[in-house]
């Protein structure tokens, strides 16, 4: 099987895939689309968006779908249908948070509204989400969010937490000891740690036009 990630040269929505591949030591090609080339490339994509995963030439779109597919292909998933459903639930719930971040950071044209939305994000939306996730993590015990082993949902959510630490506030997980331990557990996995150490990508999109 040959795997290609087609995305921009940033962590963004593709980082979770790169982390999953690294954890598994599965080779993939990182096809980087430069912002200047995007307008010409866009019409040829299924939904006018990136990232895309190409598997033996067949394309798959939609970030969570790609993570879930890789999780199931490589057995980084729940051990029961119920655990799989919980993986989906936690990824979807944290997606809402990230979509709001993308909304005010990259897509909000009104400066005053942007400041307002960010303030609400920091004062209310982040704590609401993290508090709930903290309880979930604590109840599950062990190192991970669901069941006893690493799943695609752990990697997906840990990546989001790292992104919030990087862009909003590096102390964001203080006050959520279980989430702090969880994120460290995922990022200490030797292959993941090695990938992060040598990856030059950042979370922040340098080109606002890409969204």
């Amino acid at each position, binding site marked *: 099987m040959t795997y290609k990630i087609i995305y921009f040269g940033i962590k963004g929505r593709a980082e979770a895939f790169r982390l999953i591949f690294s954890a598994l030591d599965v080779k993939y090609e990182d096809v980087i689309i430069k912002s200047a080339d995007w307008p010409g490339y866009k019409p040829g994509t*299924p*939904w*006018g968006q990136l990232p895309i995963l190409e*598997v033996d030439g*067949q394309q*798959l*779109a*939609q970030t*969570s*779908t*790609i993570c*879930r*597919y890789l999780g*199931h*292909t490589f057995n980084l998933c729940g051990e029961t*249908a*119920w655990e*799989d*459903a*919980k993986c*989906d*639930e936690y990824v*979807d*719930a944290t997606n*809402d948070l990230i979509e709001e971040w993308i909304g005010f950071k990259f897509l909000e044209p009104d400066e005053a509204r942007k400041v307002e939305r960010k303030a609400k994000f920091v004062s209310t939306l982040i704590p*609401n*989400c993290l508090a*709930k996730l903290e309880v*979930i993590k604590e109840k599950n015990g062990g190192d991970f969010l669901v069941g006893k082993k690493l799943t695609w949902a752990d990697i997906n959510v840990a990546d989001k937490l790292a992104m919030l630490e990087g862009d909003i506030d590096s102390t964001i997980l203080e006050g959520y000891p279980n989430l702090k331990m969880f994120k460290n557990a995922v990022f200490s996995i030797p292959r993941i740690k090695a990938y992060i150490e040598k990856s030059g990508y950042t979370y922040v999109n340098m080109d606002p036009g890409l969204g």
Partner: protein
Amino acid sequence: MSYKLYYFDARGLNEPLRMIFALGGVEYEDVRIPLGDIPPPPTIPAEIKEKCTWGQVPMLEFDGRKICQSLAMQRYFAKKFNLVGSDDWEAAQIDEYVDSSKDFLQVWVPPLTEKDPAKREELIKETKAKTVDKYLKTFDKIISANGGKRLVGKNLSWADLWLAHVLNNLELVGGVKLAEGFPALKALCDTVFATPEIKAWVEKRPKSKF
């Protein structure tokens, strides 16, 4: 096993779950929270909201367990009732088309909840133009390439339910008929709504604005 579903008195994002329940013959208590005159966003009664893990609906309780997030819930039951294709790749394509159908539905929320009639007309026109290429043509091509009636594989999937629901809902909420001129889209919708359990559900489901 008793199922208790909490959502608004609406089809919205959760109708595919009710369609999946219809196909699976699931009996459930359908708790419908009044939507009010949106916008502003509806209020979830405190005694329900505090039970919802993320403070949102839909939420499903059964067998002493609880699950939230509309697509997570739907996927769990879609798997139970064989609506997820025949392998991991088909399941992933189905997920992709569900995600895109949901994006398609959400793009239409601002125009269809706009109260000013002139602004609403304008937004509907704009949104139609925006969504023809991105969603209608794309989905129509996918269905045609797959034999003309379904999005993925040989059998009905929950992606078919989602797309048929979005097109049906646009018609019910705003009189917007987008499948006209797209034979494969129309064939997909006809196939879904002719399925006996879906037909029966649509005939008896509560009438709601959204």
